């Protein structure tokens, strides 16, 4: 169990595995699994995310984010998504129950991500914008739940 740190306290209710249907900005549907885990006594929270086709099992999106706190107490996420590349997202103002981040992608695009925990459901949205006056592209939207498994013989 990780120590409770200012960073971990922001993610306490999200740590662990989540799964749910996902629709990418491309329109493709799949099943998204997200895994939040902390390291270095709660100094770092890592998010691993995969979306796969529920018919073929093919992974068609994968990414990793490393969350840390800046000196001003706001979040910074060092993010990699296979189809976009690398970017640094910074926390932005939003509703108190929303974790919202924004950053620049290569090619003059920006990426915004938001996470909101609603009861037992984690809502993830992300959106790309092409340039300052560019047109918003469709969002990625996923509603995730902690997934169940029946107890095994070894437990």
């Amino acid at each position, binding site marked *: 169990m990780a120590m409770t740190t200012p960073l971990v306290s922001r993610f306490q209710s999200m740590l662990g595995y989540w799964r749910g249907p996902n629709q990418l900005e491309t329109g493709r549907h799949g099943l998204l699994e997200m895994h939040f885990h902390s390291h*270095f006594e709660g100094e770092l929270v*890592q998010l*691993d995310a995969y979306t796969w086709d529920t018919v073929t099992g093919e992974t068609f999106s*994968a990414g*990793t984010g490393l969350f840390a706190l800046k000196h001003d107490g706001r979040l910074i996420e060092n*993010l*990699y998504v296979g189809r976009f590349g690398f970017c640094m997202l910074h926390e932005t103002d939003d509703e108190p129950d929303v974790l919202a981040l924004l950053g620049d992608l290569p090619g003059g695009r920006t990426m915004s991500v938001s996470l909101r925990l609603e009861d037992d459901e984690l809502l993830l949205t992300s959106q790309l914008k092409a340039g300052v006056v560019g047109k918003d592209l469709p969002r990625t939207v996923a509603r995730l739940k902690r997934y169940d498994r029946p107890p095994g013989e070894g437990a």
Partner: protein
Amino acid sequence: MNNGIADYLPWVGVWAGVGDTQAGQQTAIRTDFVPALDGTGLQMHFEAWDTEFKTLYHGVRAVLAPAPSGVLRALAYSTIHGPLLLELTPDDEGVMALAGESLGRNHISVTFVQDAPAELLFMAFWRPAGGNVPDGDDPRMTCRLKPATPWNSPTV
């Protein structure tokens, strides 16, 4: 030459050794490499401790992955430097050379060299923004790492 993820898959596993920190302290290092991102990336978890494993001198978690252009980079977090984006610089086969700048503009360089089939030479240094480029005599963290194999009970 430009190295790919597949070039480093033989390193998957846990490596350990005793070396020296950049500040000159003796340090026990454990690092592991595991496939990530469904095999398209490589994750590294690095820890440098005092030799009694009571104080963590430096911890790094990193994922090496291809940008859409095909270039390999590593997103990382360092307990000393914070978030990092490191570039894989072209080098010889059996070498992973990563370099980049922290948000505080410190320059960081990390290199693993496969010296032998079961030995990785690890070298790393950082210097503040505008600092001199180290030559061979400047301090750096170094360690020879060996595969950390599970304990095997003696044959009865």
